[in-house]
């Protein structure tokens, strides 16, 4: 859905934002979707640049009265919602480049980098349709970066199943909550039996898997998707109202991606094998499990 603001905004062609860069071993590299080897002691050093035709920005936003505008470069943590102190630069020049530090003690497992053009002072005599309040966001973009590596996308833990009272000969167990409204983070976890040393070796290795390790991971991925989709289907009507970021919302999203028409699979009389086949097909289509191509 298009973000509609209650005031005029600059023409998008008047602003060109460059890709974020981050400092790795004293060299600036383009920032990817996640930062490798980040830990709580790592200060993330970022750089961003924006080119803007400021007369055009002001003309199209109807702010030709020299009201002070600033570029704001900031971030927020997605899991806690915590917002970092933004770096502010007066929006006067055609080109601006800014370095941003994300302090490790206040970061999050995943952060959203924000760039905004904002009004700095209230405009008491703003005309209808013109930005009036200090802080009004005239333009913005966002970039999501995961700081704790790809593995953090799904909470996983290796544990001795005997101590858990789980079947000691099984390899993994997807622990899902009973109610769909609890936050996804913290309420679902993939437990891996430490006794399955081959699977543990496969999931703890981040790259260059052997064929056997890749097969074990593919098989587990297909199984996890199947379990999560089945969990979602059994409570499908409830998930329509699920809170954002809840496990219910995550389950609904996954089911919608995997199955063309999830609701048609919610009948208690559904052919279980046909459902399994449809889920595995859908999971493979979106990149989980084996690829036959």
């Amino acid at each position, binding site marked *: 859905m298009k973000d509609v*603001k*209650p*005031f005029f905004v600059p023409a998008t062609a008047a602003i060109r934002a460059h890709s974020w860069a981050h400092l790795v071993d004293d060299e600036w590299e383009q920032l990817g979707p996640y930062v490798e080897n980040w*830990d*709580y*002691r*790592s200060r993330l050093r970022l750089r961003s640049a924006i080119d803007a035709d400021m007369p055009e920005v002001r003309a199209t936003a109807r702010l030709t009265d020299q009201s002070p505008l*600033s570029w*704001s470069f*900031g971030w*927020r*943590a997605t*899991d*806690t*919602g*915590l*917002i970092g*102190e*933004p770096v*502010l630069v007066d929006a006067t020049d055609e080109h601006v480049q800014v370095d941003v530090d994300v302090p*490790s*003690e*206040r*970061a*999050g*497992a995943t952060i959203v980098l924000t760039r*905004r053009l*904002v009004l*700095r002072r*209230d405009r008491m005599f703003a005309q209808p349709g013109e930005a009036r*309040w*200090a*802080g*009004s*966001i005239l333009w913005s973009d966002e970039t999501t970066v995961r*700081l*704790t590596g790809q593995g953090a996308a799904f909470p996983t*833990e290796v*544990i*001795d199943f005997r*101590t*858990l*009272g789980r079947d000691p000969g099984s390899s993994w*167990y997807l*622990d899902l*909550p009973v109610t769909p409204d*609890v*936050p996804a*983070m*913290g*309420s*679902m*976890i993939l*437990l891996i039996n430490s006794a399955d040393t081959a699977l543990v070796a496969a999931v703890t290795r981040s790259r260059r898997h052997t064929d056997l390790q890749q097969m074990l991971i593919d098989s587990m991925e297909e199984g996890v998707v199947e379990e999560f989709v089945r969990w979602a289907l059994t409570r499908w009507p409830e998930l329509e109202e699920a809170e954002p970021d809840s496990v219910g919302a995550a389950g609904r999203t996954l089911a919608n991606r995997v199955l063309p028409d999830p609701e048609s699979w919610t009948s208690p009389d559904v052919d279980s094998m046909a459902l399994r086949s449809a889920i595995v097909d859908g999971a493979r289509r979106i990149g989980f499990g084996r690829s036959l191509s």
Partner: protein
Amino acid sequence: MSQLWPRLNPALARMLFTELAGTSTENLATAARNEHAQTTYAATGGARVSPRQVGALVTELRTTAAEFGYPTPADESERIGFDRAAAEVLFAGMDLTTVEAAHRGVWNFVALVAAPDLVQWRFGRGNTERWIASDLTRHMFARLWWQALTFAVPTSDGRTDFSLLRGLSESDLNQITERRSLAGNPRLAQAVARVVLSDSGGRSRRTVLRDLTPRLRRRLAFIDFAVLTDEQLDDQVRALAHASGGS
């Protein structure tokens, strides 16, 4: 260097929660441990807390609780008094990064292994969210640490002023901290607290906050409060409170 605390996964947490059923507060205190064989830690990024450090914090929390009636059942005002005091103790005693403090396993460990007696005394067993962390604003200890982080105001002499937190009621805190869009910006949350604590224009603070928070959330869609000065923040929040019939 920040601390790394033991983490107890949700499956183990649920198992422990079940095991502890029917145990009295006094027996839970006896059963409390400063470590657990099945806990894990973040791989890197800080110094692991020792069992002795865990014990020292829990002892301080129990001493604080005793000031409010622990271990005998406490009334509402004693429980709230404990919450405010314990938030400061917890925040000072757990040197956590926010990533570590967002990890539910840390709070599962504190509640179910280190200090189950305090959870039982404060909340009983009626609500598992108080014991097993899912929503951080609901868990017995996670919510206190995050409340302290949100309302901690550094002073010029290097101390931390918690007077805003001390002044807020449970209902006030629920209305502010359970909305991440407000609590995620501590300066905005503090501005809201300052405005509702200063004057409610004859209306209850609950009413003022109930009217103010949706107005603020609507404005968050197109106003970046993080770029405002403290004075601008207070002005905007006060104007919205005034528009809703408050101060």
